[in-house]
């Protein structure tokens, strides 16, 4: 770029020398009407153009244009004709023509078309000016006096070269740091030139098409930009998250971005379960009250509408599309012949498959991004010079931007300081090992405690729950909650021993609390399995009872009339089998609700109430509440992230048995987003050490993947090994739930299909296939490892190259300085000796210096 500076200055030099000759030429051109004269002139100009090079032509065109403008105003008609001729012969610059044409009265069509062609070639050049020109210019086809025949081939060549130079000039004009006046003048001249002579070169076809194309391109670019804007505006909660990010830093914002991403996933899951399971059953299945399984039993009817019962998801809520038990096991429902059981099963499998796919795809994408975009070479410089967004005009946005810039600087400073921390490695390692040992002890202790408590509660259940105190009845829940409250704090204290970078410390903290919460999961699943077994035992008893009851019914009617049809009994009175699936679904729903309530109440009390107290009690308290003990709370990223992940695990586990779970979760996440955004901005203060979250978020994804795996295991186990209840749900009557697939294959597909399928599921085929996949995975893994290593090598090379360049440049700069010094000394000496030769020396030295500057810049580029 600076070379262009030099070039511009150089161009200024020949300009002065050519003024007089240019003036003559211009005036001659304007007055002469003979084409021969103009062509001769044109040739001269062409030669001149070649002599002085493209750099000179612009200067000449400048002068020419100025003269033209002056004359234009005097002789409009003459100018029209002459311009016409001149256009064809000179092909002057576009900007020059524009100004000229602006003064003219007539607009020449051909000129406009030629210009449009030029505009096509000069892509970035003055499009607004083009339109202006189009408006201003007049065209005159009759005055098209092109004389290609008059020019010899060499002259045509030269003409072509000149025209090309002009076009290049027009294209590069935007990038020149000249004042606007100069740019406009030059542009007009060059445009004139190009138009006049491009017509002469016979490129007069397709102008209208070209103009149309240009218009369409403009419109398309505008449309694309508007669409991008629209897409960005559609991202939900973007402004909220940006505001939080500017005040609290990227780690807190990463939690909210994660929350938004989860919301997206849950929306899809909701769409699947709602659209393919709940809606068909509601619209096309048998209505409420038509079957025993769809009706509230007579015994419960009185209390079915109570709020307490509904809150517990009993009563009418239990006997609705919200839970597994409501669904009928009819193979097809409605006039669409919708396969309800098949759909139920496939949706259950599909939600899990979709979740796996999304999590793994996001992990892969994040892994890619983190590798590539990590250019740290000019971190601080870029922050300083490119962080302010000049588009901001709103005071509040500007405040946010200032806060975000400050936070970003603080983050970068922290990173820098961490890099320079140089401690005693051995002490640090010993402390870290000690800390991990302490944490392991903690986890082992809590694991044993949980196990012990669960065993005790099982014993209590066998004894009968009424014999024990409230504490003993709710022991498990209480122990879990207490552990969940105190252990994370303990881990926090222990982690100060470790002295990690805050980001790494957060990851360790997350990992440890995760291990703690796994104990939670374990107790919950054990409790569930116990209840399921209980229900299944109950089933056998109930089955027996039902046969007895039916027998008694029929016995009664047979006595009256043997041929009478069986007495219709109201569905509410029929005795029911226990439905362990609905029970499982209810447990999950209750867990989610109580979890949500706990989170919100903790938020309101722990954060909001605390902030209110600190703020208002500070006026009448002995010590400074804001700086001292309670102070305002910081946003607990790790706790919230883990809560979100475990919550999602519950959803995945339970959505097979309670199709309403994704819907509930969508509502819950929606409310959480608004509540937590408000709470953060209102009650929390930024952390003291603001650190940049690792852009990838892969750590959260990895934990999510583990939870996904762990939570689908129990569901799969129950589907595969426990027979479904005989009296409720879409699979009632089958031996196993996945039998529905067999049934579909046999009845809905052509016979050859099931044959093919049975061949495909032959172990002899499946095992080699699995082996092949394992081999493929191994191969891909090794190639990716080698690519990563190559990447690291290349980065190192690049860095070394950069440093080499820096050193070379420094040396060259020093050398140039020394040369300059020498030149000055020799110049002074020479001056003393001989006056005449001084100038030469200086010129020589200066040119030498400029040479070395050029070389340096070229080498850098």
């Amino acid at each position, binding site marked *: 770029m600076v070379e262009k500076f030099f070039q511009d200055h150089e161009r200024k030099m020949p300009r002065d020398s050519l003024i007089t000759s240019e003036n003559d030429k211009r005036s001659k051109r304007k007055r002469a009407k003979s084409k021969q004269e103009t062509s001769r002139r044109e040739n001269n100009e062409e030669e001149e153009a070649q002599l002085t090079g493209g750099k000179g032509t612009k200067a000449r065109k400048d002068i020419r244009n100025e003269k033209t403008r002056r004359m234009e105003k005097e002789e409009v008609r003459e100018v029209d004709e002459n311009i016409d001729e001149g256009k064809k012969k000179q092909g002057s610059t576009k900007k020059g023509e524009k100004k000229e044409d602006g003064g003219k009265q007539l607009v020449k069509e051909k000129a406009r078309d030629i210009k449009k062609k030029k505009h096509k070639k000069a892509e*970035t050049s003055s499009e607004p000016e083009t339109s202006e020109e189009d408006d201003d210019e007049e065209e005159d086809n009759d005055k098209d006096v092109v004389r290609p025949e008059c020019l010899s081939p060499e002259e045509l060549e030269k003409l072509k070269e000149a025209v090309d130079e002009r076009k290049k000039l027009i294209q590069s004009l935007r990038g020149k*740091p000249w004042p606007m006046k100069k740019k406009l003048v030059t542009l007009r001249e060059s445009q004139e030139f190009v138009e006049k002579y491009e017509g002469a070169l016979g490129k007069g076809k397709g102008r209208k098409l070209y103009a149309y194309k240009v218009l369409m391109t403009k419109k398309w670019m505008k449309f694309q930009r508007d669409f991008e804007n629209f897409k960005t505006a559609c991202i939900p909660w973007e402004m909220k998250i940006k505001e939080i990010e500017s005040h609290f830093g990227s780690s807190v914002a990463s939690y909210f971005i994660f929350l938004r991403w989860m919301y997206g996933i849950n929306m899809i899951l909701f769409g699947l379960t709602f659209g393919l399971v709940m809606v068909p059953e509601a619209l096309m299945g048998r209505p409420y009250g038509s079957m025993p399984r769809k009706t509230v039993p007579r015994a419960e009817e009185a209390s079915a509408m109570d709020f307490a019962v509904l809150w517990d998801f009993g009563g009418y809520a239990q006997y609705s599309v919200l839970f597994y038990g409501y669904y009928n096991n009819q193979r097809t429902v409605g006039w669409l012949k919708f396969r309800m059981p098949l759909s139920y099963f496939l949706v259950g499998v599909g939600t899990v498959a979709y979740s796996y796919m999304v999590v793994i795809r996001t992990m892969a994408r994040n892994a890619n991004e983190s590798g590539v975009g990590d250019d740290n070479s000019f971190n601080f410089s870029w922050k300083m010079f490119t962080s302010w967004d000049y588009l901001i005009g709103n005071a509040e946005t500007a405040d946010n931007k200032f806060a975000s810039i400050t936070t970003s600087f603080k983050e970068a400073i922290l990173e820098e300081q961490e890099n320079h921390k140089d401690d005693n490695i051995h002490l640090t390692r010993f402390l870290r090992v000690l800390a991990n040992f302490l944490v392991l002890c903690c986890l082992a202790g809590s694991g044993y405690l949980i196990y012990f408590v669960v065993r005790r509660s099982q014993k209590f259940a066998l004894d009968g729950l009424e014999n024990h105190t409230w504490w003993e009845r709710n022991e498990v829940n209480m122990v879990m909650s207490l552990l969940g409250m105190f252990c994370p704090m303990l881990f926090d204290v222990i982690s100060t021993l470790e002295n990690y970078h805050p980001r790494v410390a957060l990851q360790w903290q997350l990992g440890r609390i995760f291990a703690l919460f796994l104990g939670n999961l374990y107790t919950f699943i054990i409790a569930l399995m116990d209840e399921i077994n209980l229900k299944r035992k109950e089933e056998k008893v109930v089955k027996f009872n039902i046969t007895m009851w039916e027998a008694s019914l029929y016995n009664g009617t047979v006595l009256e009339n043997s041929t009478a049809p069986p007495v219709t009994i109201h569905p509410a009175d029929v005795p029911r089998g226990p439905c362990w699936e609905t029970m499982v679904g209810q447990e999950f729903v209750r867990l989610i609700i109580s979890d949500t309530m706990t989170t919100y109440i903790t938020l309101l009390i722990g954060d909001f109430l605390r902030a209110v107290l600190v703020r208002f009690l500070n006026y009448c308290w002995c010590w400074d509440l804001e700086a001292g003990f309670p102070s305002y709370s910081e946003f607990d990223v790790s706790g919230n992230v883990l809560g979100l992940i475990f919550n999602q695990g519950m959803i995945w586990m339970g959505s097979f048995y309670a199709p309403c779970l994704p819907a509930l979760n969508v509502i819950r996440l929606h409310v959480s987003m608004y509540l937590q955004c408000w709470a953060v901005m209102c009650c929390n203060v930024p952390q003291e050490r603001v650190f940049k979250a690792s852009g990838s978020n892969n750590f959260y994804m990895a934990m999510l993947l583990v939870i996904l795996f762990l939570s689908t295991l129990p569901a799969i186990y129950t589907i595969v090994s426990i027979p479904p209840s005989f009296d409720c749900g879409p699979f009632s009557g089958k031996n196993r739930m996945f039998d529905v697939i067999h049934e579909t294959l046999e009845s809905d597909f052509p016979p050859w299909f099931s044959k093919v399928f049975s061949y495909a599921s032959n172990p002899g085929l499946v095992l080699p296939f699995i082996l092949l996949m394992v081999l493929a995975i191994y191969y891909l893994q090794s190639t990716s490892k080698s690519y990563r290593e190559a990447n690291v090598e290349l980065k190192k090379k690049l860095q070394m190259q950069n440093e080499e360049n820096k050193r070379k440049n420094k040396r060259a700069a020093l050398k140039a300085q020394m040369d300059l010094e020498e030149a000055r000394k020799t110049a002074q000496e020479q001056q003393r000796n001989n006056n005449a030769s001084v100038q030469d020396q200086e010129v020589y030295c200066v040119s030498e210096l400029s040479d070395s500057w050029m070389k340096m810049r070229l080498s850098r580029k």
Partner: protein
Amino acid sequence: MGNKQTIFTDEQLDAYQENPFRNRIVESFSEDGMGNLSFNEFVDMFSVLSEMAPRELKAIYAFKIYDFNVDNYLCKEDLEKTLNKLTKEELTPEEVELVCEKTIEEADLDGDHKLSFADFENMISRAPDFLSTFHIRI
């Protein structure tokens, strides 16, 4: 005529002006260096700050804007002033010192402890979001 305010006091005008570099922008485009713009200079300013201006041109004018003492170099004082304007003086002096040191260390190629235009241009040409932040949409 209406209730729209047409005469603003200085404080009110201040509320509409968010860019911390507003004075420098105007000064670098004005011929007399005092902030008075003719129409051509005004057009020039918006042309450079528009989307269509090429990167090199923007780099030239960005250099001029950040050069507070107009000596064709970005020396430490220039950087300090830039940083203070950017963060509204929320950083401590040590932090400001650290950042300016780091910036010069990163971008200075010829070892004179200040950034010449060549250094600046070399650094800004690799910046990914220079074009998207250094523009004004009319």
